[in-house]
């Protein structure tokens, strides 16, 4: 008779988190909403666009993927639910009793969410671009996938959405409250840069271009934006934001009591 080992392994924790993610209705709602928003706004942009309407100077990919600003919020909500949702429901107690090392849970959650968001947004962005181009074909926004920077921007937009959702996941893990993390994300990530942007200092402007949403904007543009950091610098900045948002709860997780 062979003895089966029931030891916790990273792949088992991953499997558990994958199972958790897809057995909640809220996952399906946020993911489907995000996809439909990006596709829907993309189609809307394509069908309503006119060559002389004043949007001619807007980057084609940016124009097509306007909806990802809304879709991104849905995916951030998902990221927050994945971590903070466990605390509000009390599931965290069961989770950390099953995996008392705790950190593997955080990494597994990040991996599962990251993979899901990246895959879905890549596919959605491709589909949205191709659909929008059906309507944009005879305008000055006509473009092909093979045009300079287009594939890179479609992928960059997906990378931006992925890193923003991981940032939200980290906020959820650190704050352990769905409303708290949602407030922090909307206030700190979406609104704060706009407020700081009103300050009349050049240094502030430079710093702002490396803030999460701005960096994500750079990543999603096929043509270089004026005064913006390079795509590489933007990717690095956004990665550091997400890493910082994950490091904070990782440091806290080891020793903080799982109360409740």
């Amino acid at each position, binding site marked *: *008779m062979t003895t*089966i*080992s*029931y*030891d*916790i*392994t990273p792949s*088992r*924790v991953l*499997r*558990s*988190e*994958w*199972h*958790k*993610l*897809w*057995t*909640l*209705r*809220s996952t399906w709602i946020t993911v489907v909403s995000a996809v439909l928003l990006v596709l829907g706004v993309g189609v809307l942009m394509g069908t309503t666009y006119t060559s002389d309407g004043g949007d001619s100077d807007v980057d084609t990919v940016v124009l097509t993927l306007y909806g990802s600003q809304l879709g991104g919020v849905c995916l951030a909500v998902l990221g927050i639910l994945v971590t903070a*949702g*466990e605390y509000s*429901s*009390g*599931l*965290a*107690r*069961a*989770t*950390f*009793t*099953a*995996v*008392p*090392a705790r950190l593997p849970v955080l990494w597994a959650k990040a991996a599962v969410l990251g993979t899901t968001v990246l895959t879905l947004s890549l596919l959605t962005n491709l589909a949205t671009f191709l659909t929008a181009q059906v309507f944009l074909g005879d305008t000055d926004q006509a473009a092909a996938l093979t045009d300079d920077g287009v594939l890179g921007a479609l992928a960059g937009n997906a990378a931006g959405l992925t890193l923003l959702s991981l940032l939200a996941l980290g906020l959820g893990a650190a704050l352990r409250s769905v409303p708290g993390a949602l407030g922090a994300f909307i206030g700190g990530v979406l609104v704060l840069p706009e407020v700081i942007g009103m300050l009349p200092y050049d240094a502030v402007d430079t710093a702002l271009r490396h803030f999460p949403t701005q960096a994500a904007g750079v990543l999603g543009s096929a043509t270089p934006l004026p005064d913006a950091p390079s795509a590489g610098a933007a990717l690095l900045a956004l990665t550091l934001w997400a890493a910082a948002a994950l490091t904070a709860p990782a440091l806290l997780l080891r*020793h903080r*009591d*799982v*109360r*409740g």
Partner: protein
Amino acid sequence: MVPRYDTARPAADHGRTPAPRPLRSVEAMIRAERLTKRYGDRTVVRDLSFTVRPGTVTGFLGPNGAGKSTTLRMILGLDAPTRGTATVDGRAYAGHPAPLTRVGALLDARSFHPGRIAFHHLMALAHTHGIPRSRVEHVLGVTGLTEVAGRRVKGFSLGMGQRLGIAAALLGDPAAVVLDEPVNGLDPEGVRWVRTLLRDLAAEGRTVLVSSHLMSEMALTADRLVVIGKGRLLADTTVAELVRDAGAASVLVVSPDADRLRTLLPAPARTSDEGPGTLRVTGLDAPAIGRVAAAHAVELHALTPETASLEQAFMDLTHDSVEYQGAPA
């Protein structure tokens, strides 16, 4: 993405087929050594030491707010002790490579996401240890949840929630179980089921630690008792000892010849009057009193052994450590 749980396909034939191969290998002893937990300037658990042994049901008893849940969370590594250690098999709970097979736990409050169906909740926990689906279906059967396994947990009654918690505790076929107030919210049938379950688990050689604030419940289930109040150890004893220490057993005797019987009883018997023709006798048990009465042809109408009530013993023990005392209305 995840295999659907098919409610139309009943979870095999648990109950009739034997349980899957036991995952359990060795027995687990739970030990708390000088455990102390402070939150700010409030000390919830103070210098608490006790040992829970395999093969018995150990009741963990104390009034509400005594620090029972905090102690159990420290045993499970959810809360870090301010001082002291809690170990399972000589090792911190978190140090076990497959902790669900060492200790299964039901904690005080609900520990599941309301939007997930019961089956998926258990399956997600099972995945962390590679525990097979058949075992999940088995514990659903054992806890009587098979019928509702496909329902979202948010619709569960308190009792069903407790059963789901117990199912999760049994998932790893653990060597020890730690259950915080398991009968809370259960109907009488459920309470009896928990009692039997705890006894069976102990009879299989497992370590069973079960907390309660109800002495009467523990009297029916536990062999050993660890009693705490305001975070301190008040008694580490057996049910029988607690009663004996709480007050000597006495015998109530009713006889028309009570006065004569009083003079006939040998030492160390002591008697006190309890009304006309009624004696309370301590120091001599009912058979001995009966024999004396028979030998001297004293007519007896009643001969009733009385033990100090366990509830009273518990109240005496914890009286000083109850957080909020009610005054007589």
